[in-house]
């Protein structure tokens, strides 16, 4: 199995968690798993077997190493941003969960929807 398929499988697991779990914290865990799978997906797009870090050193420009064995740096840079965004969403969601719990004394979405 290649990493792309694995990351899609993990994405589906996360989606299952978000959709089917009743506990709010478990839903957030599902969201985090989805985020992680996207990170894996992007990194595996840019991966080259035996690739080097894409740093041009003095003297290797022009002749030296062919570009194909460099790892694509762009997805890695993108994923740094995506990880930061994911963390801020998770932090906001957890802060909301704390507030919701202090108001309703429950984290079960079935019971929450009954409350008025």
């Amino acid at each position, binding site marked *: 199995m290649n990493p792309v398929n694995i990351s899609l499988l993990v*994405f589906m697991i996360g989606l299952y968690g978000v959709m089917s779990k009743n506990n709010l914290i478990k839903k957030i865990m599902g*969201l985090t798993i*989805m985020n992680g799978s996207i990170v894996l997906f992007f990194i595996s797009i840019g991966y080259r077997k035996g690739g080097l870090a894409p740093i041009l050193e003095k003297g290797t420009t022009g002749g030296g190493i062919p570009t194909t064995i460099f790892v694509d740096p762009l997805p890695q840079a*993108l994923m740094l941003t995506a990880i930061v965004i994911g963390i801020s969403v998770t932090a906001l*969601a957890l802060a*909301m969960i704390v507030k919701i719990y202090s108001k309703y004394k429950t984290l079960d979405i079935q019971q929450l929807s009954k*409350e008025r």
Partner: protein
Amino acid sequence: MSIHIPILIIISPLLAAFLVLLTRKYKIVLATGSIIISIVFTSTLSSRVLSGDKIAYHLGGWRGPLGISLVIDGLSFFFSLIALGLGLLVIIYSIPERHYGRTYYFLLLVSLSSMIGVIYTADIFNMYVFYELLSLTMYLLIAYPKTGVTLRASFSYLIMGGVGLSFFLLGVGFLYAMTGTLDIFHIAEKLPAVFNSSTRMVLMSFVLIATGMGIKIAVFPLHGWLPDAHSMAPSPVSALLSGVTVKIGIYCLIRVVYTVFSAEMFFLINSHNILMVLGVVSLLFGASMALAQKDLKRLLAYSTINQLGIVLIGLGIGTELGLTGALFHILNHAIMKSTLFFCAGIMIAETGTREVQGQNGFGRQQPAITFAFIIASLGMIGIPPVNGFTSKWLICLAAVEAGYVVLVAIILIASAIAAAYYFRVIQVLLSVPLKQDPMPGHEGEQMIHRGNLFRSWPIYILATGCLLLGLLPTLGISLVKPAVSFLLSHAVP
């Protein structure tokens, strides 16, 4: 200076947002001032954009596929005008609310600047980042009163929105894997070349992005978050959510369907038919659910699903007339729905209840506000002198022209249902008050009178806009024209 205008439009509210946090006295001046500066900057570009020019700005001077560029064409100019204009009115409307502190204006300004970012950027990952920023601020704005219901509504929006944006990002990943670039226009250039070798991946990325945006614009099966979020939020935020934020999702969908996946998807899965079917389903669902609502703001929220259905139908027809109608209806819906939410905010503050039945006799206390409400709801139904009629008429004409006569019947049925639920509200508003209730009236009246100027002027401006666009539809259509011609130049010949 003049070449830096596109980035200044985004930076001005963003800078003001952080300055607002430092000051207590000048927060309103800063907020309105920065949005006015953005509007002035935008209007300096109007002559160039309206003549069909495309303005590109490369951030940091890095061109093309390497750097991020901001592109202002007819389409993005049109949407940014809606966002900025309504944003200004929302800020003015929030002034009388004393308990809205600095963080409220901070969040409002960040959300407006990220909206402009989503609209202008030509880099699809950057679009995701701005959209996520916009969503974060929106979750916080909905939960701003910190009551139990708003927290719950905001949380369910957060879950749905998070899933939607994850889908979008995965779709972007597929696009990057195929084309190796993130610039929307470069992807559109390179996609036909890889289409035959990896048809399934193209299809996958289209489905993922369309589903993600479908959650954001609440098309029928994915609408679960909308009624709660739109109805529980504070009234100015409801107007912003329903008038602008949902339109940003539509903007992304239009960009993706018409610019990125233009020709090849059309032949493969007929994405236009999908849009049309989704439109019809949301139209009928939204209309019939709104009919059953007792809560005034919840009724307006379901009405949003109804009107977005009409927009999707217009986009799905895809002819010049259909696109004109759809984009014009986006403008009209933004104006009308924010009028309605502004009015609903005053009604709820004054009568002290959210129930439609509780609004008895409001028409006698505040005739001007009631008049504005009636104008906007006539527009929603689609009755001739008001703007909603023109856009619905254009979409119906386009449907007949393209041979979908059934669609006309469906739009008419939905309009009839809309008439049923809006007339019910109007009837309650105009009726004689059942009994004189001295308790809530006194306190509420004082509050309204102090902020009357700021609360009612946005409503009058918007209601005048409704009538003006209804009487002189060429005014709106001339704004829509460059966007339509841009879309048609990228679509299938």
